[in-house]
């Protein structure tokens, strides 16, 4: 059995971006990634496309995207390719605009609740080549381990499990809600030839035998989703030797480049060149596809003669626009919080005055050795919670790297 395993397409999801045009392009990128997935499935003549949940965000599914989705499913049907779709927490079966309501074509099978369903996967001549057992999320906050509801398979043909689940030990699981949590050890011994998972957006292989995979999200959504995004082409024709290869599908990639050697940068041109060089160095070995669009975040740090210009939001916007042009990116945003004037920080830290005291204090707070007294969550705009430790962590995070700004503000000459 050959199939394409994708997950977390999040069609019609919301994207952040500096302009509506960029956001619109990002939204279109999700659709384009899905279209490419369908293209790959047709080109590779797979028997099935497995969608491990979060195909769309139920409350956002627009009429246009709905039509798009049905069209693409129809394309797969035209080529005799089955689609098995297990719902996730973003597209649960019970939702009003959920997958159950859509007029799917005949080739689409949906597992939209906690009842496991076993589907035969035929080849293009109608002969069964494998089975897919799928279970879906009925609602948005499933907290039970759905993997344990799947019956143990038997038979000579390849058996695949399809599920939207947070495997506790997976990389990046913390960034996602603990929905339908599952245990890797159980999955390993559940008797399936392949686990097609969704939910965690980082592509990863949790197990080699049997293969247990998250394909990652189909299209990155934010700077946290760096790296290539796409689906997994799986060939279980030989049950003992599965062949799994990644297919990059996302038209837009997100990445962050940090530039911290700015003490010799005297002009905006030099700064742009420094960013350009840092970006080129970062792309060595991972240049992306020829048509890849880039969402780039440039983080500037350290001493820089241009620090006062870089404190201006307007200047940063303009720099972002110019870098967008120079780097040929879809968009570039620039963060310069960590930029400060060029001065001997260590000497200042040793001073016997308020500046020295403040620098030593911020070091101690950043390292967690001391805490600022009298911090009330109510006085903070973005306090995560009243929890003391969370507050302390928030404080540490905000004050970390502010030595330059403290010195800049306290020093007469530098702060002017």
């Amino acid at each position, binding site marked *: 059995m050959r199939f394409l395993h994708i997950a977390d397409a999040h069609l*019609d*999801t*919301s*994207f*952040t*971006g*500096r302009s*509506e045009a960029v*956001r*619109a392009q*990002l*939204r279109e990128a999700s659709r384009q990634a899905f279209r490419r997935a369908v293209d790959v499935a047709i080109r590779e003549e797979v028997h099935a496309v497995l969608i491990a949940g979060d195909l769309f*965000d139920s*409350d*956002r599914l*627009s*009429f*246009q*995207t709905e039509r798009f989705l049905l069209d693409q499913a129809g394309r797969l049907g035209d080529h005799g390719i089955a689609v098995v779709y297990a719902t996730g927490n973003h597209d649960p079966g019970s939702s009003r605009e959920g997958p159950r309501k859509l007029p799917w074509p005949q080739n689409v099978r949906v597992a939209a609740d906690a009842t496991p369903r076993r589907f035969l996967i035929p080849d293009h001549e109608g002969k069964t080549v494998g089975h897919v057992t799928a279970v879906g999320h009925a609602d948005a906050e499933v907290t039970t381990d759905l993997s344990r509801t799947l019956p143990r398979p038997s038979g000579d043909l390849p058996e695949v499990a399809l599920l939207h689940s947070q495997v506790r030990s997976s990389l990046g699981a913390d960034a996602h809600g603990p929905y339908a949590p599952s245990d890797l050890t159980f999955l390993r011994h559940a008797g399936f030839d392949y686990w097609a998972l969704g939910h965690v957006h980082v592509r990863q292989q949790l197990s080699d035998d049997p293969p247990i995979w998250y394909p990652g999200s189909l299209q990155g959504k934010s700077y946290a989703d760096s790296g290539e995004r796409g689906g997994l082409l799986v060939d279980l024709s030989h049950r003992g030797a599965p062949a799994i290869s990644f297919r990059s599908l996302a038209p837009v990639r997100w990445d962050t480049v940090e530039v911290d050697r700015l003490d010799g940068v005297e002009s905006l041109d030099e700064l742009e060149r420094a960013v350009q060089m840092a970006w080129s160095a970062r792309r060595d070995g991972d240049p992306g596809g020829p048509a890849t669009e880039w969402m780039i975040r440039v983080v500037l740090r350290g001493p820089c003669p241009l620090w006062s210009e870089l404190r201006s939001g307007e200047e940063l916007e303009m720099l972002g626009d110019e870098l967008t042009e120079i780097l040929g990116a879809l968009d570039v945003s620039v963060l310069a*919080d960590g930029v400060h004037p060029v001065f001997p920080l260590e000497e200042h830290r040793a*001073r*016997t*005055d*308020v*500046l020295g*005291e*403040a620098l*030593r*204090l*911020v070091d101690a*707070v950043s390292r967690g050795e001391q805490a*600022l*007294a*009298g*911090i009330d969550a*109510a*006085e*903070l*705009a*973005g*306090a995560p919670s009243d929890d003391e430790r969370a507050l302390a962590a*928030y*404080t540490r995070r*905000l*004050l970390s790297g*502010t030595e330059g*700004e*403290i010195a800049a*503000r*306290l*020093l*007469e*000459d530098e*702060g002017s």
Partner: protein
Amino acid sequence: MKIEHIRVHGFGRLTDFDTGPKTLGRLVVVLGPNEAGKSTLFSFLTTALYGFSPASRELSPYVPWGADEAGGEVVIRLRDGSCASVFRRLRSSPSGTLSVGEATQELRNRPVRWVEHVPRTVFRQVFAITLAELAGLDEDTWGSIQDRVLGSMGASDLRSARAVADELEKEAGEIWRPNRRGNQRLRDLQSRTRALRSRRSEAVERDREIRGLVEERENVHLQLQDARADRHRDKLAVDRVQELIPVKRQLQRIEELKEEAGDEIELQGLPGDLVEHRRRLAERCRRLAGDVDELDAELAGPRAALERYDEASRKLLEHEVAISSFLSRAEHAKADQERVGVLEADLREWTAGLSSALRQLTTSDAATGEAEPAGGEEGHGIQADHLPDLAAVSAVSVDLLRDRVQRLTRVREEEVRERAAADGRSEAAGRHGFPRGQPWSAPGRPGSMTPVLTLVGLGAGLLIWGLLGGPMLATAGGAACLAVGVTLALTRRPRPTPAAVPPSRSRSEELREEVAAMLTGVPVRREFLEPPGDALVSQLERVQELIRARRQARGEVELCRKRLAGLQSAMQELVRELGDELSASLDGVTANDPFQTAAAVGGALEDAETRRGDAQAARREADRLGRSREATASELREAEEELAALDARIADVTGHPAERGVHILQSRLEAMARARRLEEELEHAYPDLADRMARIRSAEEEGATWTVDEEDLARRKRRIEELDETIEALAARGEALERDALHLREQETVDAVDSAVESLREEEDQLKRERDRKWLLAKLVREADRRFREEHQPDLLRRASEYLERLTGGRYDRLMVDEESDGDLFQLMGPQLPTPVPLARPISTGTLEQAYLGLRLAIVDHLDQSEERLPLFMDEAFVNWDDRRREKGLEVLSEVSRSRQVFAFTCHPEMAEDLARRGACVLRLGR
């Protein structure tokens, strides 16, 4: 710094005020009733040091009534002993000068440099101590003082930590404040987010609306399809009646005709006029057969001519060259025969002439010319016994002989003349001369002429053999040998040798002998030799010519006779070769007569050539006629085949013999032609025929009937009109729905709004972090400042405690700061107190004032401890104090004035007196 002189030109209520020539001391009492101008004087001194504030004449309260300007001058003594004069004036704008020694500097409205270490606000707040302020120190002033006194200790490059913290808090507050007061960027963002949420609801509603519109549009589409189907059916029915039936009928007729015509394939390729076509084809066959017969008859003539040109003719013509050669030779032989006759007559004549000439020349008698020579060339026609040696005659060179004869003639004439001259003396000489009558003979040498004669004989033999039929080479070789032999004979002719001539002989004798020698073998008559002369030469020349002519004629006769003999043998050979072929022609010809034979053979050859020419012409004609016949015959075959094929097809298609079947087929062809004509007419009449036919087929498929029902027709027409209206309305509705849906689809979608919200949220989060960072930084700076002050405050407090102890007479000896306190900052400690007490009520006012005075004096000391010490102004500071406290206060004041000039303002003369007693100078102000 000490102010030594004050001169006020006009400043508030002070006008033309002057402290006089005496310099002011370190402790100055300004005594005056209330409203006398004590505060004005303080303001003037502050203005003198710091400049006007406000700097506008309109806004300044110190421009006197009725005056255009305010201003004055102070003279100050600096701690280094130098003196400086400061002049200030406020007109339309403030101006000022600072003079130190000879140097004058424009100040405009800037402070003098010796007060820059203390800001104007701090100067006014700390260095001017009023009764009201003495009991406390407001928080801001205290903070500011601490910044100045503690924060900048040892670090003049730092800004006030408090100011920095304030600035950070202010920036943080602009983003967000917990109390929601003022403009906040975060609130703006949040309100934008709320607005977007509203737009999201609209987008959700819009999406729902799109779905509704699309659903409705699909319903409309279905209705439209139904209506169109109904209309289509009705239109078909109407069309059937109005448009399709005529066509249908016509089509039916066409079908009938096509049915009558039968299978169209059977008629394919047949001409429309089949009967006529077949008739013409048969007629053509007949005509072509006649043509072939005629051509065969024409061919008989050429064939007979060809037969006449038989084998005998061809054989004769094969030997045409040989026969022609024979005929040509016969013709030449005829000429030769005639030539021989002529030559023989000439020979006879020339022989007679030669005999005569010889007789005249020589001594022997010449024979008659009638006699035939017995043998030898030279003797031909001449009697042999009389024949001189003709060869010897011919051998004499006539030219040489003529030369010698002429020379002899000349010599003899010369000798005659000599003898005549020497007649007498030559008689003796005559005896020794050449004897007369001596026979002409010359001794020869017979051996030397033998080879020559042999060569001549050989040449003559060869020549004769060649002329008589021998090879041409023999003729040429003979002629050559003969010519060489004659030439040698002439050149080797014996000459009289000198030894043979007696020395006494004369020249003539010698020449005579030489002539005689030349004529050796020729018996020349004496008369031609006595003496030899021209007659001899002429006669000899004539004889030689006749000899040559005879010889030539005899050669020619021999040649002719030889050719005649050759002709005879050629004739025999020809007759032997072509005897059979010539038998008819030679019939009647004398045998061996070459000339008759030649005439007969020539005629036969001519006949053969004629037959051959006829045969060639006949062959060309026969070829032409043959080709023509072949073409005609081929044409005939094709026509016959075509006719046969046609008849076979007719029989095959009709099942009848061709003669009958052709009429059946002709009838079918005409039916087909009529069907096609009708089709053409139909197409011409109905350009939309294909459409009509399709509609007819469609109607037939639907089982339509082709009868006309007028009532049904009218009903259907009405319904079509109604359906047209319905369809139009539905289509319009569908378009409107489509347009509306399209319009809505172009509007903002939920995901777009959510993306915008998400972006705002991200911006909000970022702003929150920025705000909190600033706020935390402010916190941190304040904390650092507090920690630093905690570490370094004791020095200030120690000094304040010293003043406090002296002012309170030891009751309190320590002033402390309680940073943890929410309320009162300072605490007092004394020997009598177990624990520090807050510097606040219920402590008495006097104690509070003493404590703050001590604190202020310590602060003042700190503020300018390393700079110019600025004057201190006390305004009724001790007025509420009891005597004991006042005494202590004045003591401290007096002590302070030792290091810093003190101005004490009071309206109490006793206070002035007390101070005067302590060395103060008194300035009096009146109302």
